[in-house]
């Protein structure tokens, strides 16, 4: 394992990266001083530190970095006014401020580039910023401690709907300080728009509407964040054109506006503000294909398509949703999602190497079993996060049971790992002398179960969030009791078992017995992290929560708080992930990017879903049902004239690449021939059933790699990539395993059965595109057959072309 000191540094590199955006906006942040009224009494913390932050001086790329810059070091984002005050007034021989002749102060001469400054000219001489700092020096360069401590930050208006492009409004930022006073600090803030095609913002907080759409504006004042939303509606003439058009083409779904479904309600509310129409509902075959890929990672068979098209029941879509949510493969899909979330990595599992793949399967089966049994999400999370191997079991009995289980696993026999109450395997990794590495565990748990990336706070206060190093370490300490290996009592019991086995055997020799390991708790406090500032003992705390010590298993206290409906992160993280599974993009994007500076694209929708999810006792299927039976989910991917620009308000479906496993399974479905997983999953299995992150079969491993199945190696970056790549296109065009399946699978059977050209063409279209061919497509196929004198070869061409068309490999 990596040296902890390195890890600390590594995390820093990553985090400092995130500071970039701030620097960029700060660079262009030169406010004109037209409207500026002089401040009577300039305050160091409120004004000077605010300016240093806004001008970019205290960012990680400049004086805010660990080493400072040019001998001048500021706390990152002005987090430590006392230290900064010292740096400015005392360090460097006090040359930075000149009380007698303020204009000679180095801080002003540097900032205005009157003397050479590596960071260039940040302010103009005598600009309002210059005058603020100058006044502060002229007034004695004093600091009133803690006067600038922020209690609350508000941005107003919190939402603004423009009338048309080109309009502008001024955002105002007001801060309530700890001493109760309020002040407009707009001038001292950094503003950033999340989508520059929708709006632009200048350094004074003036937002100018550009193209139609909605986007967030994030403001930061010395590390405190707030955000507002601006909406630029589609222009009226565009709307008129649409109205004119929709008379002849029914290219929208007006019923969405009347739907009671909470997804539809919130999406419709947004679309109304945007003055756009949702696309028309997807056709039945599109819907069937989409829901099959999304819910069970498969294509519908030609028979499924025919039956669904023929079904005249008005409720057939919701009936199909129900059918697929209870399909066994839906549980498989979830097991795979949970394996990603819990970062199942056979190379890190601390088990005998020959058992690693078998353990990976039981890890996966543990989740599969729970989804199939309808276990609520909070209980699943608890079963992972609070796992020990023994629970309350008697140690002697547990040792016997576990020995039997592991033996069965080694012999590839049925075992009851999946029904064990807890997934102790989750903790069997990254340990040193039995103590697990709590920092990676904490980062993984924060990312997976809270949607929060805390790695930055390992080294410094999170640049785009509120977490400090102390928060990070206190959070990691929740897991400091966890040990792996064998506790003393289990070791004694295991020794006893070996004695009994030896005694029982005929020749007095010990029959082959696996050495069992367990996850247990220890209060020796050896792996707990100390307070980063004082080096004192640091109590375990949830992020932003109270001291959790006192419970036998501190993780239990953590889980009590975690699953409490009052905790905003738990349900929101999960519903956001589920949303991302079904819409291709999270409401918060990326899904582990919940932070004070990354607002959701539709916060009301996220809140409504999260609230419903916790009210429904974290029932996963109910949540999925709400989403999948919405009219929003059913919309066509074909945009109409009013909603063409939309990327994050869900007025039409967004075509996307299915997950890597689904791509393979879709190929197997279409060609009618399963892949071989070389013992990673039983014969006839589907790719979604492969548990390991290191498949034995090189072809499968390559396919997974090519289509972006995650390695499950890093904790922080959302690894699964559904991006398209030319390697994928080439893979589909040339992979021998696919070319072979084209020739020998479904097509061979079809032609051998004596199907007519017409029938065979229909069948291939149904098997790949899940629809019948259009006249033009059928014509193209017929021509191809006529042109070639080899009928079979012509059909191979047709099938190949179908599998390589975008309509096949996309979920749309």
């Amino acid at each position, binding site marked *: 394992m990596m040296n902890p000191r390195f890890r600390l540094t590594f995390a820093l590199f990553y985090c400092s990266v995130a500071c970039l955006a701030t620097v960029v906006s700060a660079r262009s942040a030169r406010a004109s001083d037209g409207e500026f009224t002089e401040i009577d009494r300039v305050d160091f913390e409120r004004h000077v530190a605010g300016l240093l932050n806004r001008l970019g001086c205290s960012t990680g790329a400049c004086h805010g970095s660990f080493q400072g810059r040019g001998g001048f070091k500021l706390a990152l984002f002005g987090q430590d006014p006392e230290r900064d005050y010292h740096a400015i007034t005392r360090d460097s021989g006090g040359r930075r401020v000149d009380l007698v002749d303020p204009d000679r102060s180095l801080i002003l001469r540097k900032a205005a580039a009157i003397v050479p400054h590596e960071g260039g000219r940040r302010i103009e001489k005598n600009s309002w910023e210059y005058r603020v700092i100058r006044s502060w020096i002229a007034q004695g360069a004093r600091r009133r401690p803690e006067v600038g401590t922020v209690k609350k930050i508000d941005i107003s208006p919190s939402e603004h709907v423009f009338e048309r492009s080109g309009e502008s409004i001024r955002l105002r930022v007001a801060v309530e300080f700890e001493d109760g006073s309020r002040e407009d600090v707009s001038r001292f803030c950094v503003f950033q728009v999340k989508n520059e095609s929708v709006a632009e913002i200048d350094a004074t907080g003036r937002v100018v509407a550009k193209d139609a759409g909605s986007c967030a504006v994030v403001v930061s004042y010395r590390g405190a964040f707030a955000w507002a939303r601006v909406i630029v509606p589609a222009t009226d003439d565009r709307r008129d054109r649409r109205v004119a058009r929709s008379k002849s083409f029914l290219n929208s779904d007006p019923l969405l506006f009347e739907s009671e479904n909470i997804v539809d309600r919130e999406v419709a509310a947004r679309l109304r503000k945007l003055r756009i129409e949702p696309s028309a509902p997807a056709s039945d075959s599109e819907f069937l294909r989409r829901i099959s890929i999304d819910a069970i990672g498969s294509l519908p068979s030609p028979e499924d398509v025919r039956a669904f098209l023929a079904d005249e029941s008005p409720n057939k879509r919701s009936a199909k949703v129900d059918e697929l949510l209870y399909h066994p493969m839906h549980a498989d899909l979830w097991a795979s999602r949970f394996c990603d979330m819990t970062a199942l990595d056979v190379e890190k599992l601390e088990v005998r190497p020959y058992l690693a793949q078998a353990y990976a399967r039981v890890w996966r089966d543990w989740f599969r079993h729970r989804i199939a049994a309808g276990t609520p999400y909070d209980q699943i999370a608890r079963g992972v996060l609070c796992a020990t191997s023994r629970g309350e079991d008697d140690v002697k009995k547990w040792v016997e049971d576990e020995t039997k289980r592991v033996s069965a696993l080694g012999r590839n026999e049925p075992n009851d790992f999946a029904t064990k109450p807890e997934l102790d395997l989750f903790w069997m990794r990254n340990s040193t002398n039995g103590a697990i590495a709590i920092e990676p565990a904490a980062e993984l748990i924060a990312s997976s179960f809270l949607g929060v990336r805390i790695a930055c706070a390992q080294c410094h206060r999170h640049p785009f969030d509120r977490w400090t190093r102390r928060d990070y370490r206190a959070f990691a300490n929740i897991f400091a009791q966890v040990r792996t290996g064998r506790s003393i009592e289990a070791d004694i019991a295991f020794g006893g078992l070996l004695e009994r086995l030896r005694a029982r055997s005929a020749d007095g020799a010990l029959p082959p017995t696996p050495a069992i390991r367990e996850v247990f708790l220890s209060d020796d406090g050896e792996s707990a992290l100390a307070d980063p500032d004082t080096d004192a003992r640091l109590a375990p705390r949830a992020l932003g929560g109270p001291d959790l010590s006192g419970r036998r298993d501190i993780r239990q206290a953590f889980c009590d708080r975690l699953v409490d409906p009052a905790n905003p992160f738990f349900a929101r993280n999960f519903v956001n992930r589920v949303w991302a599974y079904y819409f291709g993009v999270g409401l918060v994007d990326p899904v582990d990017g919940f932070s004070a500076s990354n607002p959701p694209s539709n916060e009301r929708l996220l809140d409504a879903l999260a609230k419903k999810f916790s009210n429904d006792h974290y029932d996963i299927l109910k949540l999925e049902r709400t989403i999948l039976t919405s009219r929003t989910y059913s919309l066509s991917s074909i945009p109409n004239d009013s909603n063409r620009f939309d990327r994050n308000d869900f007025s039409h479906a967004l075509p996307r690449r299915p997950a890597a496993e689904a791509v393979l399974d879709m190929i197997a479905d279409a060609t009618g021939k399963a892949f071989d997983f070389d013992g990673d999953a039983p014969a006839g299995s589907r790719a979604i059933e492969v548990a390991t992150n290191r498949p034995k079969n090189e072809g499968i491993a390559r396919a997974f790699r090519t289509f972006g199945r995650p390695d499950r190696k890093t904790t922080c970056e959302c690894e699964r990539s559904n991006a398209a790549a030319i390697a994928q296109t080439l893979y589909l065009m040339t992979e021998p395993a696919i070319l072979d399946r084209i020739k020998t699978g479904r097509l061979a059977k079809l032609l051998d059965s004596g199907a007519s050209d017409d029938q065979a063409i229909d069948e291939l279209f149904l098997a790949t595109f899940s629809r019948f061919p259009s006249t033009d497509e059928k014509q193209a196929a017929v021509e191809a057959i006529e042109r070639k004198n080899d009928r079979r070869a012509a059909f191979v061409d047709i099938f190949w072309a179908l599998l*390589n068309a975008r309509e096949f490999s996309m979920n749309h």
Partner: protein
Amino acid sequence: MLGLGSFDRAKSKGFAAIESVAPAQSCGSAILIWLSGGPSTIDMWDPKPHAPESIRGDFTTIASAIPGVRLCEHLPQLARTLDRFTLIRSLTHEITAHDVGSVYIATGNRPSQAIEHPAIGALTARIVGPRSGIPPYIIINQLKDGVIDRAGYLGSAAGAFAIEGSPLRNALRAQGNSLPTDFSLSALGDRERLLKRFDRGLKGLDETDIGSGLSDFQRRAIDILRSDRVRRAIDLSNESPTTLERYGSTELGRGALAARRLIEAGARFVTLGFGGWDTHTANFEALRTNLLPTIDRALSALALDLESRGLLDDTLIYCLGEFGRTPIVNASAGRDHWSRTMSVLLAGGGFRRGYVHGATDDRCSAPTRDACSPDDLAATIVSAFGIDPHAAVASAAGRPIVPFRDGKTIDKLFD
């Protein structure tokens, strides 16, 4: 805004020129020869003939084409042609484990739990972009699955195309880059025609980013298959016996020849793996009988060949492993892992020829002059391509990431 999609190479060059971080002339492609296991560079490119035998080792030294610079006696051809090369003797870091060390050198970033950085080749190929008919990033003899050619935060789309098989037996195979034997070019034409007809059905797809992207990929993929450039490049059967002889009858020699042909065919970055350098035992035996003669021949032939074809200015060759080896010879006549000092051999790509950068102490235990880190080396290499090492690129998840936060371009390495 910071997306790679909008990365404009010309603009970045302009920016680079203003900031004077990159040479005026920039290179367009690179060949990385990866000495897996950690080459004993003290026995190769930074010999210490005056050190005690326990450090000096078994070999004597010979003069090279750079006055005053000596190389190991078993590198005669490199010594003769060293004036074409650039030698860095002061690369240093502190990771002595194979995998993590490899990641550090290959990505130019310390390995992190929080983020997986892409290999320099993945990043470069992504930013510089492909030429028609051939993938931009290729690896021959991928020794460690995905360790030195990882796509990291760029996403699998930026990964290397792996070329498998033995170059020595002229049996290289390009998975996915050429048509299988029973798939003719005329069949490809028929199928492409059908594909175009069937691809119109999904209306609206062209308007989406991913849909239009895929359409572009289809076109490029068919170009690659039709041009058959990759397969022709890795087919060495028409090379003259003289050329084959010059590169040497070894996997590395033939691999280097294939790499040159791939670069000529338009590839941007070719990585060539060469294992066997983890010489804990019988270091001198392995170096003398196999490793050094192989590399001596292959590297010098590659540089001269590129030079005679007028490609050396535009193509960077560089050769290194994950770390160097201990100055003190161990009891098994081997050397163990040592990352405080290691040498790197480079040629072409606008690097200063006949220049030795940095130096180590008389025991080769630490750099004494111009110490540089893997981060610096990586920043320098991308700078040679006209890429600003500090300009953010977009991760697959859309986050802006500065590729070499800690790397400083080593200006002295350029003319």
